[in-house]
């Protein structure tokens, strides 16, 4: 893993990390490292997630009641703190997803053919 390659990765836009975490948790409880890996892998390693940056976001989401957390055991028998999507979190995810799609569509429309050609 070279620094060169890391630099080419996309930095997350402000506020999108929350959305990605919620989205990841839709498939069931995950611990922090699992969430980080899942985001990176599902984005085909395109997104750069500094694992440490995940935690303030998790903290925030937990405080708002969108996710809940408790200590459990991972598949390879390690103790870890598992996060679960709450009902409120689910609602939030739907809302945020819709918003994000509209935003992405609008931006795509503005950028139009140029982006496609580039």
């Amino acid at each position: 893993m070279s620094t060169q390659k890391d630099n080419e990765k996309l930095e997350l836009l402000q506020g999108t990390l929350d959305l990605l975490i919620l989205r990841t948790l839709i498939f069931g409880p995950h611990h922090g490292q699992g969430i980080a890996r899942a985001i990176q892998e599902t984005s085909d390693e395109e997104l750069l997630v500094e694992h440490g940056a995940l935690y303030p976001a998790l903290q925030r989401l937990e405080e708002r009641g969108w996710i809940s957390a408790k200590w459990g055991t991972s598949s390879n028998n390690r103790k870890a703190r598992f996060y679960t999507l709450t009902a409120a979190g689910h609602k939030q995810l739907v809302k945020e997803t819709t918003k994000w799609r509209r935003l992405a569509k609008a931006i795509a429309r503005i950028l139009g053919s140029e982006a496609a050609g580039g």
Partner: protein
Amino acid sequence: MFGRKRKLDDFSAEIEAHLKLEFERQRALGLSEEEARAAAQRAFGNVMQAKERFYESGRWLWLDHFWQDVRYGARTLRKSPGFTAVAVITLALGIGANTAIFSMVDTLMFRPLPIGHPEEVVFLCLPRDATHFDSGFSGPEFRQIREQSSAVFSDVGAMIMGGLLGGIGRSDGLTVEGTTKPVQALFVTGDFFQMLGIRPYLGRLILPSEGKTPGADPVVVLSYLYWKARFQGDPGVIGKAAFVNGHPVTIVGVAPKGFLGPTPIFEMEAYLPLGMRTVETGEDTAFLTDVSTRDLFIIGRVARGVSIEGANAVLGALGQRLAKQYRRVGVSTLLQAKPLRPPGIIDGSNPFPALAGLFLTLAGVVFGLACLNVANLSLVRAVGRGREMAVRAALGGKRARLVRQLLSETMLLALLGTPAGILASTLALRAITSVAPASDLPLVFEFPFNARVFVFALSIAIVAIAIVGIIPAVRASSGNLSKILHEGGRTSTARSQRTRTALVAVQVGGSLALLIVAGLFARSLKNAQHADLGFDPRNVLNMSFDPAEIGYGQAQGAEFYNRLLTQVRGLPGVQSASLAMVVPLGDTVQGDQVSVLGYVAQQGEQLRAEYNAVSTEYFKTMKIAVLRGRNFLDSDTESSRRVAIVNEAMAERFWPGADPIGRTFKRDGDSAHIIEIIGEVRNSRTADPYSPCGPLFYIPNTQCYSSVQTLQVRTAGEPQAATPLVLAVARGIAPTAPILSVRTMTNAVSNGANGLLFFHLGAELTAALGLLGLTLAVVGIYGVMAYAVGQRSQEIGVRIALGAQSKNILWMISRQGLVIIGIGLGLGLLVAVGVGQLVGNFLVGVAPTDPFTYLGVSVLLSLVALGACFIPARRAMRVDPMIALRYE
């Protein structure tokens, strides 16, 4: 501490787990152990930062910081005990003076009566002019008002003050188990207590069914304080048989604790049903039935939903009907309800707001000086700590956080200062309440500490924090960090030095203003003390009696006084003795309307004169010069011709330029007789020690009986030495007769409410505040000068090394002090002229801009202030250049 949502440990464990999981994943991908650990770390980023961010997102972070600040502040304060002590004591004195004065003002003006919904309770009156009113009503008027005001009042009751406060020249005595003691009675209608909405402390209060019939319902309710003081709080007195002025009654209850009656200054000690006023009047029931005997005060409670203004609209019409029906003259017909609140029912101009304004202003100045002082001290420290602050800022301390730290330090000072201030004010209040007014009235001179005052002190402390904390904090954090670091915080002090100079100048000014007010009051006291009273109070013993308290009628009473006088005159060391109805500068003056044949009154001129009923030898005992005519003689008896001796003012008023002897007049109180003038005496003071003397006539006590009389004994030596002898004589004649009071005439004048009491109090209170201000200013000047010398010691060393003489150095330092003092004096004189506007009414014989006081006090303050400069200046002269230069 308060629970954080999630512990830091738990968070650390989670990160630990994360790193392990990542490490295992990397191992699974085939990395070596070391590589895997590094990769996991890299993927995670900065662990410390994550933890910090977690920590700072905690909800209670500010509280953490707060506690850190407080602990840090406590540590710094402990490290400089001198500063801490001076600051805390300064704050305590400032807060203390304010709290003590506010406690007084609160008691005298603001604290609502301890009754249900005090804001609804009013008294009724008919205004005479802007400040005067008639609040006396007759029984028939009262009943008509009660019937016709039910639309606006839910209750209407009436009361009559008994005893000395009743103004009919007698007192009341309560006899229990053979012992009679004076008691201040209040006669009330049956619904009085129900209207006030208060419950008994013990037993019961007066019942609504009581008080309608003269002499019926012989019950008495004691006040809490009287019960505590006389019966040591013994509940066994309830149900006991007792006597009021010899009339049998039963003690049925004790009024609630804290309830002094309808006014907070005088205490009503015994409550009786209105009809029982016959214990004072005997057979006479005019106070209930006669249309022109207007003894009743009317108290009412406005109905729910009715404002006092609304009630007044209805009362206005009622007043006009009353005026027509009962022929009231000299008053407006606009019957009015006024709120019954401290200081009670005051006919005439109320002096309390002006007094309160004055003393709150003075206390405010002292408080300002205290704040300035602490600010100054903090500023000195803040500048001294400039380097520390700069280092902390350079190491990443946020500026807001540094400011907060300084603020929390000051807050700690204020926290320490508040209890100390409450202690100081308690001591001050104790000093004030220890004043014993020479009065036979049930004066309550108590200013207790209460919750309201505590809150006041606390809010003062908070203001102090803001004032004291912000200035140095802002200054310290706005410094140029690198400059301070490079220069050791020494050369950047010019600006702060200027600020401190200004602060101290303001202090000097404030304390000058305080001292000037104190000086004015002292001069005023001196004038009052040296006023020509017209009589000689030295070597006179006063002893007051009222045999009516044990049921003596006029014949018995007169006999008692006669024997008393004869026997006392025979005592060794007694030069002369006499009796008088009223004592000059005592609690009361007696006045009456007079009519003089041949004297035509001007439009609206009131023909009033004061009078006193006295025995033979009165003028000899009081040393009042007889100008012409003769003294009263034993031959002036009840059955002989009515005679009077007038003072100069009376002679001048009615018979200007003529000899008054042989002239005649009448007085309303005894209109059946013509009174012939047999002598003229010098003017003497009666109501106060300074006002011009008004018309006054003396009549023989044989021709005007009063059951309250004061025996006055002029002795050859110390008058107090005669007390046991005189007491023994009185006890020998009437063993059970209570003695109202024993005091020397000198004490009566000096501590009487109508004598010099308020002059003393005013002078002492302002002197205390002035001294406090002076002390604060001296501390301020000394602090600034000492600091300046310390800061400039290197410069001074250089100057001395270059050949400067001591006197040059002295001048250099003193000049700075002189500038401060000069500016301060200028400011202070301006402030004093302003404050002088507030004191004018309380001064006698001295103008509020009295140049002598202004000059004298300025000189005094300058000398003291120069003294405070001199000590640091002398230290500057002795600076050893070698040491000063080597120091850096």
